[in-house]
């Protein structure tokens, strides 16, 4: 048996893909988006709070943030989702009825927050103390200085890592499946998986992958574009051989000096 043609049949069967396409478009895509977008917003918000708590000098903020991060990053996502889904099910039942989405979004957000919090913390901690001093000398309180000066710089430094996490989140949204979904509540991956199971062919799964790509690639490039815009012309380097592409090292220097633009030494 020719292994290549087996591979091709298994993953690139266009008929299987065409069959799965309508359901992916009408059911899977919206559901994935609902889950991922809500969890991304909530998770980033919580992550920012965790990051701030994690660098606080107040032990009573720092320690809980540390423990939270360790636990929610360390546990397998399936276990966390089940714990929250099952543990809070009676509560969720009362508030939202049997719809597993609210609890699923909550669980996804709580997990994402642990990761995003560490990313934001890294970014914020990499901002030079001089910046904080500069802001505080103007009369800003610690909170204002963080919000207006430090956090914007810190977050910008870790945007790609944050995008990493959003992408992971888009894909983790398939885990709400553990909470039990109606057919109309299934997201992209689950639909791909179900088609794969029913046809004995992985092409639908690959199609789900293509949908993910269609979400994640524009996301990546949009954020990279924003990132570059924010650095505004300061995408600049002292670089090796050049074929005139965009730039490399950002000139986001704490104490900036004139940067050469496209005048790189070789």
């Amino acid at each position: 048996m020719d292994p290549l043609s087996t591979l091709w049949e298994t993953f690139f069967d266009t008929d299987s893909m065409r069959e799965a396409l309508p359901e992916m478009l009408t059911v899977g895509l919206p559901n994935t988006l609902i889950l991922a977008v809500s969890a991304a917003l909530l998770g980033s918000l919580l992550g920012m709070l965790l990051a701030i708590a994690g660098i606080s000098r107040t032990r009573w903020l720092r320690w809980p943030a540390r423990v939270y991060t360790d636990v929610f990053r360390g546990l397998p996502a399936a276990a966390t989702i089940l714990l929250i889904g099952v543990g809070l099910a009676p509560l969720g039942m009362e508030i939202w009825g049997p719809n597993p989405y609210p609890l699923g979004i909550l669980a996804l957000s709580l997990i994402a927050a642990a990761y995003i919090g560490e990313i934001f913390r890294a970014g914020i901690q990499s901002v030079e103390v001089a910046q904080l001093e500069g802001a505080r000398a103007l009369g800003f309180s610690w909170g204002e200085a963080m919000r207006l000066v430090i956090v914007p710089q810190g977050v910008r430094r870790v945007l790609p890592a944050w995008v990493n996490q959003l992408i992971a989140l888009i894909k983790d949204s398939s885990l709400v499946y553990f909470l039990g979904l109606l057919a109309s509540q299934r997201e992209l991956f689950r639909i791909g998986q179900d088609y794969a199971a029913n046809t004995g062919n992985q092409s639908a799964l690959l199609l789900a992958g293509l949908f993910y790509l269609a979400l994640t690639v524009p996301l990546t490039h949009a954020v990279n574009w924003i990132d570059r815009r924010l650095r505004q012309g300061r995408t600049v380097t002292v670089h090796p051989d050049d074929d005139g592409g965009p730039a490399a090292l950002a000139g986001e220097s704490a104490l900036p000096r004139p940067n050469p633009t496209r005048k790189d030494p070789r």
Partner: protein
Amino acid sequence: GGDDSAAAADNPYRLLQPGVLRAGTLTDAPPNVYLEDGAFTGFDNDLLVAAAAKVGLKVEFVGTDFSALLSQVNNRTFDIGSSSVTITEARKKTVDFGNGYDFGYFGLDVPAGSPITGFDQLAGKRVVVVQGTVQDDYATTKGLNPVRVPDYNGAINQLKAGTADAWIAPAEIGEKSAADSNGKITVAAKELSRAPTAYAFAKGNDALREALNKGLDEVIADGTWTRLQEQYYPGRPIPAEFTPGSGTVAVPSASATS
């Protein structure tokens, strides 16, 4: 929690939603349980719909992961679990089972041209099974050290890639895969599985369990069970040692219903 007697009156089976039987199932295990055109179906699920109708309940299916299913039944996320769950002692600690409604044959799939012809020749071979299934249990208790994969596709891939020597499959699935493989895979042998499969209920929800046991007997008696057997497992003989339901009703023969 503490249902008061008033609630118990209009919800005698202590369902999550009165009148609706919320059933946890899988979406990806045909022909037993699966999704087709956006609707849950398969032998187990169709049978459940029929039995529940006898008790006056409408079924709402919810797809989940098998490793989570039984604890979700136990935690009342679902009223019932329907996924060809084999009755085992370990599972009985977590959930209660209704009466058995199905049995299983094991099929032994091998790559075309394999020297393996029977279940007794598997020692020392790379035998693949789907994780957590009765076949897994079977292979493990026989000391075969099986290769576990998450789903049937994984098993088929193993055979095709030559990374496994044999696959112990549910017989009907093994046959379908062999038929679909353009002669690359053949079924070498079949064997009856001992334990029956049954619906799972939360512990202590005896009212519901007994009601559905009764409904099951009724759909056996009226020939629905036999019809579904024919539909999903055409040509599969029913072994003499297996009786569905409580065993107190007669099973009409296939010819009698069709």
